[in-house]
């Protein structure tokens, strides 16, 4: 009887320990968003990715043990017009047929002050992988977390816009990826 009690307690402790060591959060995609903002002849345009998944292994007590993986379906881009969305999925832009997903996989997450993290990892778009580092802010509300980050990239690094679209006077090289992930 005593033994069972101890085992039960130990397993309960073990469980709670596991819970604090790593909390695999489930992203609520309905409340989350990923967008890319760029300038087309100086006109700011915001494109939204309708389909993506985010897996965040986050522990507020030791953020350094956190991990994050984001997968974006490149064909789900919405630049505000169904006809243009199809064009942007084509070979010259995202080549969604060959590269259906853009991914980010973290390699290190470090605490950078209250509610702030510095995230480093591999960003893979259109078969081109690069190391990126960006600041991420995190807000906790009970068991719910929201992560907000801004990551400036250059589209030509990833061959986004080939051929005549390499002209940055038409579409600027600078693209700002913004994301907001609500998870629990």
């Amino acid at each position: 009887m005593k033994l069972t009690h101890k085992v039960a307690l130990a397993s309960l402790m073990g469980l709670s320990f596991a819970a604090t060591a790593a909390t695999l959060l489930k992203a609520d995609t309905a409340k989350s968003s990923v967008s890319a903002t760029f300038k087309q002849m100086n006109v700011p345009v915001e494109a939204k990715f309708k389909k993506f998944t985010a897996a965040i292994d986050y522990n507020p007590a030791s953020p350094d043990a956190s991990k994050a993986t984001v997968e974006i379906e490149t064909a789900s881009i919405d630049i505000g017009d169904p006809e243009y969305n199809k064009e942007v999925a084509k070979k010259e832009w995202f080549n969604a047929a060959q590269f259906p997903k853009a991914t980010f996989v973290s390699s290190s997450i470090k605490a950078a002050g209250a509610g702030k993290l510095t995230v480093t990892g591999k960003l893979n778009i259109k078969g081109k992988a690069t190391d990126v580092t960006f600041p991420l802010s995190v807000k906790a509300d009970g068991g719910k977390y929201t992560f907000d980050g801004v990551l400036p990239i250059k589209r030509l690094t990833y061959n986004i816009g080939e051929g005549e679209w390499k002209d940055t006077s038409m579409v600027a090289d600078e693209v700002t990826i913004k994301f907001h992930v609500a998870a629990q």
Partner: protein
Amino acid sequence: MQRYTTTAIILHWLTALLIISAFTLGLVMTDIPGLTPAKLKYFSWHKWLGVTVLAIAAIRLLWRKANVPPPHPASMVAWQKKAADGMHILLYILIFAVPISGYVYTLAAGVPVVYLGLFQLPVFMGPNPELKPLLKEIHYVLNMTMAAAVAAHVLAALKHQFIDRDGVLKRMLP
């Protein structure tokens, strides 16, 4: 015969040139399939032209208020005077309505106008995918109405010149 003021004449022909350019560009750019740099360029130019037409229209209206246009020739019968006045009012309405409808349409499409690529013009409404098709249709119908009104305007001017020979056209010629 009393002529229009030089300012009115310049503004009139400038408006004509800009409207014909914007209209032609509008037809050409919407005929380009897919997405090309030229297409995006034409869209921007089309919007800049439209905004310029709108600005000049405002100036023209103010000028017209301060400088009364020459009266109709006495040879014109009453219904013709009324028709001419009505047509000029319609043209003025369209000169404002066509660019405004295009401006609202592009805002609904989520693409604000950055005039000459230099500065962004006011964004008084956000992207509106529901309203977008309706605004597109309105912009198109207004344009076709304008094309018809301009054709009538030109034909009337030619009638005055070659049939009535009353010098009405000369009042507006440079």
